[in-house]
């Protein structure tokens, strides 16, 4: 099997598994499980946003939570003020995208180094956290929406079918929407990465100077990548605000940002499935541990991070691909697959 065939086969497997889950789970599982899987899908979308800009674009954003939180708050405030959720949903994507575009413009067109990209994005997330955190009191409101400071905003109206505020989404609809969007994003990003733009984005990660010598505008490509990442994180924020009908400043927090990085690292940067698996796995672990309260969860995550940095620096998925990939994939020029009954033979 060539890498191309294996890649297509992988896509087909993901599509079948995804759609099986999408249509099967609502029939088989109870509402509690459905709610759990919904939040995992939302976390996976969030993980995917960083997996795309960091794993492929090489942009290490320490403040992905800024876009996530902004998406959640944009939805919460706009939904409370407008009633109908159609425009709030779009705002929750557009606003973080605009923030990412503005931030990206100053970072990439000024050609600041990767370290400072990390510092600036982290700082922006912290600024959002501190500002939103200190908006307690009746004087802080946008329209009818009280910002609520560290208490957050409760009772956020749920998503409804476009332009029909009376027809709200029930938990099954929410599950289908979240998982459906995750599947669509996975395949959308796959398709994007196969275009010339996507291949240039990966090339920038490898060698930005060479990309410019060829004549591609690396600054613009990075800006577009970063903006797409911001939009996806905003979408995750919007879905999360819906899921719990509640937002709080911790969405912007440093812990949230660090978690997203851990998801991507554990799952494997440089793949799309890795961040999805990492997000789901770690979120599941957090839920289980939180329920038993036997271990200190942050402590365990710290340990997981250290173990992965030391032992599995590429993440789970790339490690599995390396270990077992050669069972399925034969790159041209590599040793030939020996068919049954055929004498073993090595090719140069």
């Amino acid at each position: 099997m060539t890498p191309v065939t294996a890649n297509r086969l992988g896509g087909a497997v993901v599509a079948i598994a995804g759609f099986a889950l999408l249509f099967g789970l609502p029939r088989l599982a109870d509402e509690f499980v459905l709610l759990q899987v919904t939040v995992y899908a939302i976390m996976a979308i969030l993980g995917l946003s960083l997996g795309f800009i960091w794993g492929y674009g090489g942009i290490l954003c320490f403040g992905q939570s800024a876009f996530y939180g902004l998406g959640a708050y944009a939805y919460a405030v706009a939904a409370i003020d407008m009633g109908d959720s159609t425009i709030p949903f779009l705002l929750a994507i557009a606003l973080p995208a605009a923030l990412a575009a503005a931030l990206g413009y100053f970072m990439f067109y000024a050609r600041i180094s990767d370290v400072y990209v990390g510092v600036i994005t982290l700082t922006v997330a912290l600024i959002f956290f501190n500002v939103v955190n200190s908006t307690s009191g009746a004087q802080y409101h946008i329209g009818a929406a009280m910002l609520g400071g560290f208490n957050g905003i409760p009772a956020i109206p749920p998503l409804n079918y476009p332009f029909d505020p009376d027809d709200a989404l029930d938990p099954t609809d929410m599950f289908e929407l979240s998982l459906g969007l995750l599947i669509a994003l996975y395949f959308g990003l796959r398709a994007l990465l196969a275009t010339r733009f996507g291949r240039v984005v990966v090339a920038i990660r490898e060698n930005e100077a060479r990309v410019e010598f060829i004549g591609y505008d690396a600054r613009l490509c990075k800006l577009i990548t970063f903006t797409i990442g911001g939009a996806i994180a905003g979408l995750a924020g919007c879905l999360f605000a819906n899921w719990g009908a509640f937002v709080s400043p911790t969405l912007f927090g440093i812990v949230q940002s660090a978690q997203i990085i851990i998801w991507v690292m554990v799952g494997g940067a440089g793949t799309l499935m890795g961040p999805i698996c990492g997000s789901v796995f770690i979120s599941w672990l957090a839920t289980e541990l939180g329920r038993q309260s036997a271990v200190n969860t942050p402590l365990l995550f710290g340990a997981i991070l250290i173990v992965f940095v030391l032992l599995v620096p590429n993440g789970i998925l790339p490690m599995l691909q390396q270990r077992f990939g050669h069972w399925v994939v034969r790159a041209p020029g590599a040793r030939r697959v020996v068919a049954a009954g055929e004498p073993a033979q090595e090719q140069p």
Partner: protein
Amino acid sequence: MTAPLLETAALNKSFGGVHAVRDVDFSLAEGELRCLIGPNGAGKSTFFKMLTGQIAPTSGSIAFRGRRIDDLPPHAIARLGIGIKTQVPNVFDRLSVRENLWLGASRRARGRTAVAAVDRMLERLRLDSAAERQVGQLSHGQRQWVELGIVLLGDPTLLLLDEPAAGMTQDETARTAELIREINRTHALVVVEHDMQFVRSIARTVTVFNQGAVMVEAGVDEIMRDPRVRDIYLGKQAAA
């Protein structure tokens, strides 16, 4: 006499107190092949970096076909038709040879045209058998060729080659000289090189850089006979 392809006027670059390039007036005709020589630190690489927009000149101007380019970003200069092969191979080490070349071809060509151009280049560089390998796994000489291939696929009017034969075996060096002569039939080139044997095998006119300035510019045989050139390479700075 047509206008020069590339022309710099009173080009200067200082880094703090270091005057890396001073008052360089350089002119290259359409289709010309020029060699730049000079000891380490003579300002050749800085000169190349200014031509490709990586660093801005402190003063002076650079014109390409009569158009000022000294204020353009690197990708815009590349689009005008200046390609560079840098001193250290500047390639995508973790991508395959084919992907490297495809990226070079895809700036201008799309779809099958790009793929066909890559196939032709693989053959021309004799890298067809290594097409699917990661560039980082290849020898230094082969990586140099991959880079040359990326540059050539962009079909630049002018190629800047910074030590294209560095780290190559004798056979590879000979093949590179052959490639450069072949490229020169359709493209102008400026080649930085230390290997005088190599310079002699490709060049007609040679420009000698020393301490940031152009010391002498003449035919290759004349340069080889010039005692001053020998002196700067041997580290004997003329006292006067």
